[in-house]
């Protein structure tokens, strides 16, 4: 769709996973599919944070933010070695 995609870190309220899902990774994926059929799930996290990393357009990111259980959708930062 041409819009500039970026990588986003998505924080999820794991305890709000609907009972219809057996595993929170499936819930994350369904949440993502609800805003983009083609978005790539880069990583799902289980220990460092609860959530996942994905590629979205800004509009898709805004839309994902409205999904139940989504706490925050943060653009990925770049870090540097010291």
């Amino acid at each position, binding site marked *: 769709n041409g819009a500039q995609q970026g990588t986003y870190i998505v924080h999820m309220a794991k305890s709000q996973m609907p009972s219809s899902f057996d595993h929170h990774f499936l819930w994350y994926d369904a949440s993502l599919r609800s805003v983009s059929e083609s978005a790539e799930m880069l*990583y799902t996290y289980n220990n*460092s944070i609860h959530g996942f*990393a994905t590629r979205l357009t800004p509009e898709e990111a805004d839309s994902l933010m409205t999904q139940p259980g989504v706490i925050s959708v943060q653009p990925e*930062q770049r870090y540097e070695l010291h």
Partner: protein
Amino acid sequence: TTRTPLFLGLDVHNSGLFPETGPSSNVVVGVLDTGIWPESKSFSDEGYGPIPPTWKGGCDAGTKFTTSLCNRKLIGARFFVRGYEAINGPVDESKESKSPRDDNGHGTHTASTAAGSVVEGANLLGFANGTARGIAYRARVAVYKVCWKTGCFASDILAGIDKAIEDNVNILSISLSGSRTGYTDDTAVGAFAAMERGIFVSCSAGNNGPFYSSVANVAPWITTVGAGTLDRDFPTVVILGNGKNYMGVSLFSGDALPPKLLPLVYAGNASNNATYGNFCISGTLIPEKVKGKIVMCDAGGNPARIGEVVKAAGGLGMILANMAYEGEEILADAFLLPATTVGKKAGDIIRHYILTDPNPTASIVIKGTVVNVQPSPVLAAFSSRGPNPITPNILKPDLIAPGVNILAAWTGAQGPSGLESDTRRVEFNIISGTSMSCPHVSGLAALLKSVHPEWSPAAIRSALMTTAYNTYKDGKPIIDIATLKPSTPFGHGAGHVSPTTAVNPGLIYDLTTEDYLGFLCAMNYNSSQIRIISRGNYACDPSKTYSVADLNYPSFAVNVDGSDTYKYKRTVTNVGGAGSYSVKVTSETTAVKISVEPAVLNFKEVNEKKSYSVTFTVDSSKPSGSDSFGSIEWSDGKHVVASPVAISW
């Protein structure tokens, strides 16, 4: 590293403090960085016992890296590249290894600093020769490659932390940082999760010193490490035609200059670029004017690259002069031609000599490695400074450790200067930064964890801080090379690490996950922010009054905001024997009065906890931007439990 263990008192006559066998070799140091060069002798597993049963990690195969390269020393090696590839496209495997293999050198250097095996006869081109060993040289190493050619991306970093937690590392060493917006930043959030699992997280404070409030990685559950020098240097002598001599530093090891005075030229007068000609930028030197001469360039870029420019233009040698920004801090560089860096003062004199003498000449003598340099440590100018830009009432950095001219293992994919044209290959390299001081503390934490496996990350940090020193043996304060004046707690935090006393600190300031969550409530974080960090349903209690001042931190920072009186509460846990501790407070100005209640704490048994309160009474009329420092020390005659106090208006 060579020299550092001796400098830190970790040499043979203190080896009993940290038994070499048993628990010390069951501690796993995880390093988030650019990967590892597994063939380095620093990761030999000769003499190591079986991999600790608690270990759940492993090794990922990839470009030029098979799982067989892991061993009983290097017990984990993983890489995380999806975030990097999402932005940069597929890794060009002709230029970068899509595997844990370190193409850069930084990760090999930090991992071997923290926990490298013993290697006899280590050196860089003959410099800093000695027995290299990691601070916790019996510990195991697990590397998580999250940094690539163009940087380290949050999604990869979080994946590395995620896996390190699952693999069950005990220590996490992270020598990188991003923007400093708050505690919901990715490494801060990942570090919180690690801390909750009892993993000690040490991070570099950043190299943006000496600027005020430049410190990074300031989350209170992270140990933030600044950099100081060692008692070792690599001096040179610049001899001028007028007979004057000036000291410099260099790691050049090739053919020396001819033993005579050579014509000396200032780049600003030998360049086709009127504005920047003095910096010896590529393509700006006029070969006819520099050929066969020693060229003086002004500092401002990668020193080795500047040397490369002079060499390409036909210069025989180079004097690189610090400018105001670098001042008198001279970091050693592995130049590709006979060259030396000199401090600003010497540089200004040499420049004046060149511009006023009708026939300026000079020579450069490389003196090699000298030790027992005093005063040492001095605070590195580049070491980032407080106050804490996010929470001024939590003092950061926490402490300093060796970070200047540190020799440690290196990659086989790069030369020591890091320049493409540098075809030299070395097993060890000397580099500087808080990236180097952080793994020193990671290694120290591994040693403490091996002796005190029951200690929490906060207890380990407390022991390192309350036993750190901020004066030399003669009682004079540690010098800040940026000012050539005494350093302050905004520069050195609690002071320079002192492992031999940290192992038996007497009292510790412990902190639990709940304490840190209460701190976030005190910071007025909303429920979403707290949920991001806690990954749970913790909620602040509306009936409670939370205060940053009550976070049980081993240091004190007061940001004067109009009031005259500030109350802090602390609880100490006895980890020594029974004892009666008396308090001693110091304040450098009458503008700050410090009173402690009670003034005596009596302990009968180990793990007994006692609380005390501190009242800071300040002259709130002092001008904004003022700072004042002091200390709060408890002693039972055997232990000194010292906390710095930093007051800023």
